[in-house]
């Protein structure tokens, strides 16, 4: 078998080119820390990685929504807890006012404190959330409650707050409408709201009041009944907020462990292993050097050199 001189050179060139291509590919792998640098390295694994990447991006967004929803629920709970404290104080004040021996000055002080409780609750009910909108405003973005010249507080929002998406086809109501939390309280067959309950107590006890002692007693009794109903309402609301918060905590944990799992799966699919790649690179470079060295030696061999 005779090998043409020209062909033997071409062949060596092709072999060396192949080896440097391989070196280059391995270097690319090392530099990018992945085996599947282009889809064609492993089309099937690549398409799975693309799907995983998408899932991970979605989960990241859902995790961010979950964390927003959590902070909104925390804020709601804080607000409701403050309102509860205020209600307890109002309850104490109402009980103290129901004592007939209370001097008119003390009664005026109680009335003033009750009025300030209404102010505080109005401020809390109009709190803005981390998004800069009213926490209890429902579906509208303006103030949740307004107070007219007579001091009557009314719900200015509309409808229910939009639920926040926390998963594919999964939503959570991260905020509650103020109308449902502070209003719609049934007392003695009438529908009233928290502000009116405390506000009425304050006005009936104020020095300007013209009410008879009997009327005052009846108003205090009705007020205490209203405060109890409002406390119940707030308790239920806080329980609901707590339950949703617990669900979000579970969701946060689920997303976190899913992220880890997906990352592991992705690494597995890619199959990049630095040690292996480095070893392959060294082997390829060694082969290339050996090929170059032997090519140089062999190409020096020519019978013409020995014809003297």
């Amino acid at each position: 078998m005779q090998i043409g001189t020209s062909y033997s050179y071409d062949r060596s060139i092709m072999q060396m080119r192949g080896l440097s291509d391989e070196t280059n590919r391995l270097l690319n792998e090392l530099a990018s820390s992945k085996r599947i640098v282009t889809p064609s390295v492993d089309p099937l694994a690549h398409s799975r990685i693309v799907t995983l990447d998408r899932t991970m991006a979605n989960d990241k967004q859902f995790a961010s929504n979950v964390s927003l929803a959590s902070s909104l629920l925390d804020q709601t709970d804080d607000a409701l807890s403050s309102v509860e404290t205020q209600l307890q104080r109002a309850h104490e004040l109402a009980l103290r006012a129901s004592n007939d021996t209370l001097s008119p000055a003390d009664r005026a002080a109680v009335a003033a404190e009750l009025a300030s409780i209404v102010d505080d609750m109005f401020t809390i009910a109009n709190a803005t959330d981390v998004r800069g909108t009213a926490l209890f405003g429902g579906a509208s973005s303006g103030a949740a409650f307004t107070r007219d010249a007579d001091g009557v507080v009314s719900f200015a929002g509309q409808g229910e707050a939009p639920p926040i998406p926390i998963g594919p086809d999964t939503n959570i109501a991260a905020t509650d409408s103020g109308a449902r939390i502070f209003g719609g309280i049934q007392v003695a067959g009438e529908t009233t709201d928290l502000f009116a309950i405390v506000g009425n107590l304050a006005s009936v006890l104020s020095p300007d009041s013209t009410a008879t002692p009997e009327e005052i007693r009846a108003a205090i009794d009705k007020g205490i009944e209203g405060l109890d109903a409002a406390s119940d309402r707030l308790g239920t609301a806080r329980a609901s907020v707590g339950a949703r918060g617990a669900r979000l905590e579970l969701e946060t944990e689920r997303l976190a462990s899913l992220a880890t799992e997906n990352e592991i799966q992705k690494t597995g699919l890619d199959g990049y292993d630095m040690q292996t790649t480095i070893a392959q690179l060294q082997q390829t470079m060694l082969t290339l050097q050996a090929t170059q060295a032997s090519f140089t030696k062999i190409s020096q061999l020519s019978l013409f050199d020995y014809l003297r």
Partner: protein
Amino acid sequence: MSDLLLIGASGIRAYQTALNVIGENVANVDTAGYARRDPTLREIAPGAGSYPLQINQRILGGVIAPGVSRAWDQFRAADVRNSGAELARTEAGITWLERIETVLDKNALGPSLTGFFNASQALAADPTGIAPRTAFLESASAVASAFRTTGEGLVAIAEDLKATTELAVTELNGLAQSLATVNSGLQRAKEGSNGQAQLLDERDRLLDRMSTLTAISVSTTDNGVATVRLNANNGPVLVDNVDAKQITFEANASGTFAFTLDPFGDPQVLALKGGALAGFADAATRVADARAEIDRVATDFADRINTILTGGADLDGNDGQPLFDATGGAAGFATLDLDPREVAAAARWTTTTPIANEGIARLSIVTAEGGTPAPSVTISLSGGVMTATDPLTGVVVESVPYTAGTPVEIAGLSITVSGAAVDGDSFAVASTGAGSRDNSNLNLIADARSAGGFEAAISTVTTTNATALTSRRSIADAQGAIRDGAIAARDNFTSVNLDNEAVELLRFQQAYQASSRIIQVAREIFQSIIEI
């Protein structure tokens, strides 16, 4: 004894020729298409003596080099051409598939779509926030730019591919023309002459080059004139003796390639089966398919998102605006200029469900096609009939029977009831006002994402291309090995090996020296006769 002198002289002449042939071989060691020349040496035929007494005496005539033979094996040459054509087709395909892969993969079209849909989810969590609205519009720009660069990249590939194919077709036509010229020369060349060998070299160089462009089948006559058929030995004739036909090519509207043989004589549609041209045609089909799919995804995506957005209400309570313009396909994909407040996150119609309702029915409402609904209306459900009432006057506007889950048109609205209603349930429906925190229009975008499957479609295009590329690479490896084997087998016969030439050089040099020694001896013998 003058015969010895003549024999010596013939040896000198013959080995001079032989040495020249070795010189020619060494000089052309790296010339493409050159086939090794072998000197033909023949003894000069001994003739009968001219005298009757010498009739039985053998007369020796010496040696003659009547010509050179060209080391050639047409079957092995055909093997090289056929395997080369196969390899060229695959390798041409690989080059272009790699470019398609880069365009599909590196422009991050899939990830930018994912980013867009996730930005809409982020906006759903804070529908009135200007920051998430701006982020949503930014992600829309990223999608538009990814569609555009991908589309433009594919268009550029298609253009380059077309230009490359033009060049290759022009080259093939040139080669066919040159071969016809060589054929004409071969008809007149003297058998065994160096001129004929040179023409044959040129013929084989042209044929080898042609076979990298397209699969050919070659038949040769005794005097070396080649007839070339395309594809196989029953394919259409490209070069017949001194007559070469032309090939033209054009790209169809869809981007695929069509080749025509002899367009100005007897036009014939060609399906090329091998060589780079076939590889280019394969690649053109791939580019066309990828372009069509990316364009389809772009149009579908833009249509769906625009339909959803224009059906909603923006932050100021106005009707939503379209966001994308895909009329130019992927390559012309653009976003329309929207203010963050103009993103329609809210549904056009807000439904308030009174606590007093006993059923769990919910309404999903869009403006009916061509409908002009009043700004507010009360919808009540009773006994399978939906009734629209003016909330201010209490006047019944319209009554229609309905089925849960199927949209019905009433009072200019298209309403779908979900869940079971209890007779007497009613809903207050009003046009969404300014500053609404409703996000249900964005939920529709999430629905469109799963219904449209845009990201999966992009991934499928990429994977299909990558799979084709991977399989072609392994095919190319195998075809390369086959081609290498064919070249080795042919070279075994035809190529110049310097070591062999060195040996032959020594041999002919020695024979030359020996012949000159013969002349010297003849002279000495003649001298000794004279000196008697």
